[in-house]
């Protein structure tokens, strides 16, 4: 769409103004919930009771944030949700790394080493994307029990890896389909084997899709509540469960500013990932994973 002769008539200028207006309006709409949360999280409780959603805080206080981070009670522990962030990290990092690695290997094996029934294997894996997680809650619990992984971080990592593979494989496969087969042929002739070709040839060119996959998986795993609550214990609860406990206690006085601060804290890592790596996201999609 570049390189069009754009005649600078008033009408054209108006149209351009309209485009910007529309884009900015939509940006405001998208930002609104976050804005509401942010505003509320720096208001005092009186302020919240007095004003409406969008009214600016009369005084800005960071107390709710501090409180949410280190004092808010989740159950009888009043240590804030800060500590749970670490739990989440312990789950997310291995889960993302392992599922991405498996997805990459699967994508590679599915596209660059032809064998019979390959498409069916892929279709079969892909279907895993569509299974509602509520369905597998109990059978998975039983399985984890059998494996002796009930209520452990390892168990949670396993669950996230198992149900993440479908998407990671999909992403990598769609990307690797567009990597020329000759590259692999050349490496085979050069004497490289299955894993060496993967590590030396394919992996170095996979950055865009790795970014996409990592963002996707990170978001999915970090935001997970259902598995987190069902398969964790006292020590291993991820931050979403802690957040839920702060926000969803139905008895007692609700400290909305603390709730919002806690929600923001829990969301910060994913937000950060999107802001920092967002541009690679679109680039990575362009590079392949869009292809139907």
């Amino acid at each position, binding site marked *: 769409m570049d390189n069009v002769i754009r005649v600078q008539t008033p009408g054209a200028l108006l149209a351009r103004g309209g485009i910007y207006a529309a884009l900015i309006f939509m940006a405001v709409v998208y930002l609104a919930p976050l804005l509401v949360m942010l505003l509320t999280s720096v208001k005092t409780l009186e302020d919240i009771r007095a004003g409406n959603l969008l009214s600016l805080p009369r005084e800005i206080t960071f107390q709710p944030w501090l409180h949410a981070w280190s004092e808010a009670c989740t159950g009888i522990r009043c240590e804030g949700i800060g500590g749970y962030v670490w739990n989440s990290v312990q789950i997310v990092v291995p889960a993302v790394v392992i599922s991405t690695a498996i997805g990459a290997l699967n994508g590679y094996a599915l596209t660059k080493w032809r064998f019979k029934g390959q498409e069916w294997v892929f279709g079969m894996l892909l279907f895993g994307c569509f299974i509602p997680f509520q369905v597998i809650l109990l059978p998975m619990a039983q399985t984890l029990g059998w494996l002796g992984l009930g209520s452990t971080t390892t168990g949670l990592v396993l669950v996230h890896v198992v149900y993440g593979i479908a998407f990671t494989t999909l992403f990598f496969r769609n990307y690797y389909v567009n990597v*020329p087969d*000759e*590259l692999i*042929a*050349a*490496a*085979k*002739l*050069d*004497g*490289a*084997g299955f894993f*060496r070709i993967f590590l*030396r*040839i394919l992996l*170095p*060119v996979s950055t865009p899709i790795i970014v996409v996959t990592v963002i996707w998986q990170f978001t999915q795993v970090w935001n997970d509540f259902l598995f987190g609550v069902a398969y964790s214990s006292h020590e291993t609860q991820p931050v979403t469960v802690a957040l839920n406990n702060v926000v969803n206690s139905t008895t007692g006085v609700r400290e909305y500013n603390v709730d919002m601060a806690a929600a923001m804290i829990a969301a910060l890592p994913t937000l950060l990932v999107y802001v920092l790596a967002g541009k690679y996201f679109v680039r990575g999609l362009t590079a392949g994973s869009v292809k139907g």
Partner: protein
Amino acid sequence: MSALEIRNVRKDFGRTRVLREVSLSIDSGEFLILVGPSGCGKSTLMNAIAGLEPVTDGSILIGNEEVTWRTPAERDIAMVFQSYALYPSMTVRQNIAFGLEMRKVPKAEREATVERVAKLLQITPLLDRKPSQLSGGQRQRVAMGRAIARQPTVYLFDEPLSNLDAKLRVEMRTEIKKLHQTLGTTIVYVTHDQIEAMTLADRIAVMREGRLLQLGTPDEVYNDPVDMFVASFMGSPSMNFIPAQLVRDEHGISLAIGAASDPYRLPFPAARTTPDLDAWVGRRVVLGLRPEHISERTPWGEEDANTHPLTTEVTVAEPTGADILLRVRLGEDEVNARVSPKQNVTPGDRLPLQVDMARAVLFDPERETRIA
């Protein structure tokens, strides 16, 4: 010694048979060129030789050793791809050294080889660039360097020059030829380009629909095609196919072209008539005449028994600089002719030409096979 031997190789992709009983044997040091229309199975054959695709049937021998069921790494082969297939994440140096590294060549030796190859191909200043920073011709040379570094028994080149522009192509062609002469290696080379095929090959293999139609020196393939397909495939503009009737007259055997009432007659070289040809007398055949055999009259033309005068109308004249390509009437058809740029031709002229029958060929109009 045969460097590479292919015995009855068949290859099916699912239901489609892509190679049908291909057999050929390539001598050590020979430069074999594979030509054929798109989709005829050239790349498939190359891949089979390299071990990138298992064959359905038949066997492949490299250096007299059966390798049909060896992995590509275990065959002593290097390949240059049409798309070059340079490893995008590696520098030129790493690209060239990769194959050696995989074969556990010591580092010092690897470096020496890279230097030597780079020098040979004049890419020493590029060694630390990434492929994306190279021009098409440079990439092509790196791809070649990668193959050369390994010094394998057989090189495979799959349309290595087709992505280059005309000028670069000519230059690279010369380099490849030199390389072959210096290294004395065995090469199998696929190309669509006539000139490339004619100038580089020791032998040319013409393929069609998974079959090997003809295998011979460039001269044989060009001048002695086994059928109309091979004849039309080599040469540009391609060979004229002129419907004619084989008649016997005072000169021996002649070809009668055009209206039955007033045919133009071209005697077939007496030296080349065979007893088999007699069977065709009185029947319709196809006369194959290359454009360069219909040309301006030359003084020696009159002396040559195989050269016959023809004065006819020019319908199209296309000067190409080095030649003028003409379309001229011959009998009821139009044929391509080629004259020197010295001639002054405009469409509509009647031009005195001569037809050189020395290399004329005859085909069976139905089965399209060669008669003589």
